[in-house]
């Protein structure tokens, strides 16, 4: 083989490997997408070609499943969590980024550490407390515990974005006559806006997909979408066409959001350890 042929062969092998890898990554997702449009019978026949139907989406929103309520709960919980977390995290992140404080490293490490604490540890005391004060199975309770996983993440991520804003610009604004708060409002917030939006989307996805807290804290009124999946266990086993339809309702919006923040994905998920 000439050097050129060898190169071409190697390129072809690489392309094939990439396609296989993509196939493996996509198949489970695609299979759910297909099953969601299949009838009950088609699912059980492993059919690749079938007459698509939308009836599964109708069924999941109807009695007794009423996925609409879960969708509403998920949306409210994730949205309110983000609305509380982002402004609070932004102020703290600015301060961490721009000032040196007594015990700053300590605070940052503790905040980082809370991110890694297993959710089961956090939820035990909350369950006991919520049972005593009547917050079990409420959206408010769920929002509170969701803050535990979202806040540390948001603080670190937004700090990373603010670190990336040059000091020069802020100092120019101060010399130009701004107070510190004016600097934050007029300069930092507009410049950090894309970063803030990215962080908000990240946090929304995390809160939306959160499973353990909702599993333990809710049973009827505040059930969220991921927990709702458990509804589709019939007497004769799982109702896969309905599960898949519900799955799409959970996944699809997150896919759209995730594609929006593609650029910041790595930096966000590693909290700045990898850029």
């Amino acid at each position, binding site marked *: 083989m000439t050097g050129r042929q060898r190169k071409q062969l190697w390129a072809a092998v690489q392309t094939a490997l990439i396609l296989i890898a993509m196939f493996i990554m996509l198949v489970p997702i695609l299979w759910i997408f297909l099953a969601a449009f299949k009838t009950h019978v088609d699912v059980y026949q492993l059919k690749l070609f079938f007459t698509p139907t939308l009836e599964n989406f109708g069924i999941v929103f109807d009695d007794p499943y009423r996925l609409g309520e879960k969708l509403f709960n998920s949306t409210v919980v994730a949205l309110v969590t983000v609305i509380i977390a982002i402004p609070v995290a932004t102020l703290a992140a600015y301060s961490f980024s721009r000032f040196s404080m007594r015990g700053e490293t300590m605070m940052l490490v503790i905040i980082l550490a809370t991110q890694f604490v297993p959710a089961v540890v956090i939820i035990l005391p909350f369950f006991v407390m919520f049972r005593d004060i009547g917050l079990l199975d409420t959206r408010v309770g769920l929002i509170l515990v969701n803050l535990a996983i979202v806040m540390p993440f948001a603080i670190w991520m937004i700090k990373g974005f603010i670190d990336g804003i*040059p000091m*020069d*610009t*802020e*100092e*120019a*604004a*101060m*010399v*130009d*006559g*701004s*107070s510190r708060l*004016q600097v934050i409002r*007029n*300069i930092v917030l*507009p*410049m950090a*806006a894309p970063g803030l939006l990215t962080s908000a989307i990240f946090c929304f996805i995390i809160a939306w997909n959160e499973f353990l807290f909702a599993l333990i804290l809710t049973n009827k009124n505040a059930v969220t979408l991921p927990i709702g999946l458990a509804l589709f266990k019939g007497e004769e086993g799982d109702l896969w066409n309905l599960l898949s339809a519900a799955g799409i309702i959970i996944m699809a919006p997150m896919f759209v959001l995730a594609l929006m923040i593609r650029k910041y994905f790595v930096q966000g998920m590693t909290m700045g350890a990898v850029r």
Partner: protein
Amino acid sequence: MAEIRLDNLTKRWGDFVGVDNQSLHIRDREFLVLLGPSGCGKTTTMRMIAGLEEPTAGEIRIGDRLVNDDLPKDRDVAMVFQNYGLYPHMTIFENIAYPLRVRGVAKSDIRPRVEKAAEQVELTEFLDRKPKALSGGQRQRVALARAIVRTPKVFLMDEPLSNLDAKLRVTMRAELKHLSRELQITTVYVTHDQIEAMTLADRVAVMKHGVIQQLGTPDEIYNDPANLFVAGFIGSPAMNLIDGSVKDGMFVTTGGTRLVKIDAQDRDAAILGVRADDMQVHEAGQGDIDVKIYAFENTGESTLLTVQWGRQRVIARGDRHLRKDQNDVVGISLNEDHLYLFDPETENRIRI
């Protein structure tokens, strides 16, 4: 318009001394350049004047006012930053207008003033653009316009030309000089580029290790350097510094060559300073001393000869038509009127 007075100003970070107990009086309407290598404390000094850095000790006065405890916004200074510090989310107009807006200047007043400032730096046609759409030189002008749009007591400029390419730097330097003569506002200018310092300054303060080494007009620091550091820092190529001693009115190199007549007391160790331009190049045998060429460089407007002088290398400037080759031997003579003598211990100048 105002004078600036720094009294016993010190800045320390832990054990590191940024600025060491320095006093400096900058006169009203003066253009003062702080010159020195990186880490010499020049930028720190300026940032303390701006209020971006808090002094560890000492007092800063702008006009009659003690400003130590004033926030930057209350000091009535304008600053041009090394990386310009433009607001990327605002248009050029908004950038220039920001200092007025934030100080509550009436809307109707803002537009004419911004337009005037933009005109002074030739930016009128770019007012609707964002900084990202501008070239480096244009961004530099926006930073300038933002500084001159109001009449501050003091201009502060932190290496404003260092991010521009060599050619643009020369143009902008001239524009800056023109503008500063027009405006007549007290200016502090930080740079590590001695040509900028020489061309722009009324007076230059040369700094090293947080200490002002010499304060004087460009003429003074070039022709009358106070110590070894200033002598070596100013001028291009740098002043030649030759180790040796003084004996019987002659400077003798470490190698034992009796080099040149010098009107000084005998001493065992001395350093002779001589600029490349103060040496003449002759054919071999016709100068004070014959030396071998280590490298011959033709810069177009002149030639530079690096010659081996015992263990040291010395640079002499030759005529633009001179052509020599490596290892050729030439004669060199020194101009006795422009010799400097330094004490190697204290590094101070020994007055002849």
